[in-house]
């Protein structure tokens, strides 16, 4: 593998602390702010039961959620394109099915955002903290 990325991801050797860098926002600085000198053993972490659980839980939420909102959005769009008469059916005064369905998209988007934020905060973040403590402790 080329080592061209080293300056971008690892920090160049010239980039000593205390040395003033004015490199257009420190563009050549490290992406990795390491607290310990040792590199984490990523393949090992990947095999940890906590990590596997984190990965399983994450995927179990994000993929079905994505499938749901895409399906709901596409069915809305296709209805708008091919069944405009249904969408123009008035419900309350001049407010019609299309406007209610459009606002329904707003509601599901906001609700899904809230659900995911809550899920990640309650279920994912604790596992991440546990993992990070474990990895930091080993170094």
């Amino acid at each position, binding site marked *: 593998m080329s080592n*061209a990325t080293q300056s971008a*991801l690892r920090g160049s050797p010239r980039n000593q602390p205390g040395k003033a860098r004015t490199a*257009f926002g420190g563009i050549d600085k490290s992406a990795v702010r390491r607290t310990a000198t040792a590199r984490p053993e990523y393949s090992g972490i990947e095999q940890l039961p906590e990590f596997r659980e984190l990965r399983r839980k994450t995927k179990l939420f994000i993929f079905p*959620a994505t499938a749901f909102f895409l399906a709901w959005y596409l069915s809305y769009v296709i209805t708008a*394109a091919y069944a405009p008469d249904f969408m123009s059916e008035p419900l309350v005064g001049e407010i019609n099915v299309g406007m209610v369905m459009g606002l329904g998209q*707003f509601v599901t988007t906001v609700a899904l955002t809230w659900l995911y934020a809550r899920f990640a905060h309650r279920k994912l*973040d604790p596992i991440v903290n546990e*993992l990070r403590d474990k990895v930091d402790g080993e170094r």
Partner: protein
Amino acid sequence: MTEYLLAETNQVLPSDHAITNTTIFAVFVLITLVVVYRVGSMASSSDYFVAGSTFTGLQNGIALSGDFLSAASFLGIAGAIAVHGYDGFLYSVGFLVAWLVNLLLIAERMRNTGRFTLGDVLSFRMQQRPVRAAAAVSTLAITLVYMIAQMAGAGGLVALLLDIHSGLGQALVIAAVGVVMMIYVLIGGMKGTTWVQIIKAVLLFVSAAVITVFLLGKYGYNFSDLLVDAAENNPNGHSILGPGVEYGKDNTTKLDFISLSLALVLGVGGLPHVLMRFYTVPNAREARRSVAWATWTMALFYICTLVIGYGAGALVGSDAILQAPGGENSAAPLLAYEIGGSVLLGIIAAVAFATILAVVAGLTLTASTSFAHDIFANVLRRGEADSESVVKVARTTALVIGAVSILGGILVNGQNIAFLVGLAFAFAASANLSTLLFSLFWKRFNTTGTLWGIYSGLASCLLLTIFSPVVSGSPDSIFPSVDFAFFPLKNPGIVSIPVSFIFAVIGTFIGKDPSNEQRRAEMEVRALTGIGTRRG
């Protein structure tokens, strides 16, 4: 008096008010600029690109919505709703739902694996040089299309204020406005830009909310009555309340609409200037919070645009809007004039201008970072470039992009900005989304797949656009007098997005390059946990 003028000349803005309008507008622009300049000059040079990753989730969330609520969302959507009715509202829905892609799939993982650019993430476990080059090419292309739309919007806005109707005059206005914006970008940085976004987003929300409440109040808080008036003042009549006015003509336009909708919902996940915003927060949790904040604020804003759009149709009338300089894009400013006279017009125009300015600044920064960081420092100099030359390259890139987008803005002058931004979304969804998702979630994905995905999406999008009615063959094309259009759809998304996914898969299976197991494991662990990045 306004009604008298409307009847006489079918023109809402009396031309003798041009000086008053412009003065109020200029004062507001100056005030915002001074604030921004002061914030910008207080920041250290190390804050230039990603603002030292110091913004909180709330600040960044408002800045994200600021980046996103560009001229397209405010001027473009309001105009589209005023003139075409419900079809304009579909933009709002697509723009909003799209944020779920970022929230669920991209934001946190992007923050955990990258530092400056999209190329950082895409090249994480691939061969560095070709992938970085490809990522930079797609970033430049998408940014350029997006910027052209913004330039056209800014030009139209100022032309409206100055009451300039001639094509040449408007072209000059676009050029002058573009130059002013580029000067500002070269002085400001990411920190300054983020503060403009925050200030401007708050101003935009307040203005939109005030106009919405006023409009609803005028109709006794009965939205239905407002819709009746909007339908009466539109030649399409009652049909503007349902879908189909613009896209319902025949099967081609219906398919075009599906194509646009796909691009809208999938495009946000590939927009470089939005993705770059995830780097301005300290960690993945703040990135998640910022997307959540952006989603709340935008949901409210887009509900306001629905009222503003139909309100402009009701009070100004779609004919008067189409007659004004800037066409559809002038609906919101004209509505402001209708309800608050020159003062409100000046304020709204200044807010819209600050919006465009901030978005252009963000776009230029993204493009120049990408070129300087990925192509110059990593591909050409193999990571050995010194900082001064990187600065120089980034500034030159900014200038070149500015010049090209000014020219492009003159060419597309008069097209609806929301439509042009929809094109930029198609580019983003085609060139970046497939490769970004595959490199985050597909173990087997490799360098060949990445390159095939990016270049096939980019090329198909570009070719289909060139040979579409946007460029030639119809009265509202860029070149109406010639006809080399063979692709019937105005938005290529429905073809080019699947093309990039399919080619990325084929490329992966054809590619012989060995996958780097160690880097893959590192990427997976880092994406989910952030281990190896700074702890927040």
